[in-house]
């Protein structure tokens, strides 16, 4: 990337980013937590959360974004989300089946309902958010050295 991206973009972009990035992040969390009641879910929410970090990175340069979510942390979050999802699946054996929805279903339309579905959404959100962030970092910050052809 050019030097411009090391330092970030202009003041206008930075100011607007400061205002919006939190809202985008919160919106992502909302989408994840209400995945079983309204449209959306772990995947869409996870991507939105990742996009909020990407937004920050584009506006402020990469150092600012890595301060909040380092690459090592992203990698750990990703594996953690994946293991959590697989763990929920294996916990189903408590009731006798792989992937059994073993928690009480609760009352419809409430946030705490639908058994394992919100938990799965959160696990997927961790996995997807961290994964997308990692892909983006790897691809966008890939320095191309065209010298040795």
């Amino acid at each position, binding site marked *: 990337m050019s030097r411009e991206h090391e330092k970030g973009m202009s003041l206008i972009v930075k100011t607007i980013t400061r205002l919006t990035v939190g809202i985008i992040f919160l919106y992502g969390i909302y989408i994840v937590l209400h995945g079983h009641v309204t449209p959306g879910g772990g995947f869409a929410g996870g991507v939105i959360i990742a996009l909020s970090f990407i937004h920050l990175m584009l506006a402020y340069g990469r150092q600012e974004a890595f301060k909040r979510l380092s690459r090592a942390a992203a990698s750990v979050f*990703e*594996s*953690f989300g994946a293991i959590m999802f697989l763990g929920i699946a294996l916990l189903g054996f408590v009731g*006798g089946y792989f992937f*059994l929805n073993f928690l009480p279903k609760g009352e419809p339309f409430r946030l705490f309902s639908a058994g394992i579905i919100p938990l799965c959404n959160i696990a997927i959100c961790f996995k997807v958010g961290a994964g997308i962030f990692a892909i983006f970092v790897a691809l966008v910050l890939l320095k191309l050295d065209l010298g040795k052809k």
Partner: protein
Amino acid sequence: MMGSVNIIPFFVAVPLAGAFIIPLVGKKLKKAPDMIGSFFTFALVVLSVFAVAAVKGNGTLVYSVGGWKPPVGIAMVLDGLSAFMLVTVNLVAFVIAVFSVNYMEKFTSKWKFYTLFLLMLAGMNGVVITGDMFNLFVFLEIASVASYALVAYGTEKHELEAAFKYAIMSAVGSLFVLLGIVFMYSYTSTLNMADMARVLSEKGTGDISLMVSVLFLMGFGLKAALVPFHAWLPDAHPSTPAPISAMLSGVLIKSLGVYAICRVFFNVLGMTPTVSSVLMFLGALSMVIGVFLAIGQWDLKRLLAYHSISQIGYVILGIGLGTPLGIMGGLFHLFNHSIFKSLLFLNSGAVEYSTGTRDLKKMGGLSKKMPITGATNLVASMSIAGVPPFNGFWSKLIIIIAAVQAGRYGYAFWAVLASVLTLASFMKVMKYAFYDRLKEMWDQVQEVPIYMKLSMCALALICIFGGFLLVGRLDVDFLGSATGVLMEGVNYAAMVFSNVG
């Protein structure tokens, strides 16, 4: 009964758990990926042997994931054919994981290799064990995506190019499969394969079967590298690290291509004479074209890759015959090919590990310096060429006898011809690589490390004693039950639904 059903999800869960754990621990502890890779694949081999025993004891086993009975939920089906494929896939994977312990020292970031390896294995096991059409597609994609990355693992020019070509063609193949699934879903309004077969036999197949057959044949044919769709294989297979070449040629094209073709065409759509003759024709074409292209090659791994196309042709020819003997020959050849082709690729990897070249013209007399590699390569070459008493001979013999019995003398002739040409081509390999005069530049060459030797010896032993699979109880429980599943045809539906547990 209940206990043996519960092993089914672990075929997917075990490799996935391994793959998810490795990134967490693998960066700090350098030995951990080796240990996890070998240990988890060994656990899978043990599980597969249990699976064969379970199928023998209980017949078809059906597992409803999440407690939802099919067709509402996803069903996993373990029958004779699945158990057969699981043993093949996991056995080869275990041997290759052991081989990689030493071999992958030549590459950076070993933990990424093992993660992708286990993910690919999870994908293959998932394809083999599932009873649901869309689930098959999902696991097909896991295995494919992992294999794209593994082909590009060396990150050199040619590897990236081969990976890109493979990835594009394979992605298009997957989308053909997905389009076929959409047509099937719209027509039958279900995704469970057994339920689909039931609906199709009640409702009749109509014009839709033509479209769906074409789409599935193109999609799975691309994955299996049948001849009109084979262009990616000779680039992709040689470009990978040797253990992955062995994995791709040995089991990936079989579990994603051949197994899926068998399952869909025999058990879901129902075998018709047209499909049967198309399969036989494509098989014979692959067999002959593959071997002709192989003869002129001087790159050891590229030569082996072309032979993979040719040997897949034998498998498809045998299965396409549709007679019990033909199917059994085809499946037995599938098993044998995964063993000896993996061994050949591991040998080529061993040669590359010690000498750093793949060019046959540069090698010579290596068996003096690398006796174990030379000896195991001799066994594998005799086996692929169909020299008695090695395992390849028996399976080719059965296929040829089946072709003659079915009155297909032409195909039998081509099979014999291809076998002779294979022998010629491997005579060349043996002469140039291992038995010619030792060149001076190779004076310092040493035999490969211990784990590589061990895994090559293990595969060579299976090659020598593979013929015993045709004897007595083993034949009935292992190959016989797999053949039985395909001969049942669309009765598969009844077999599955009577066993929902």
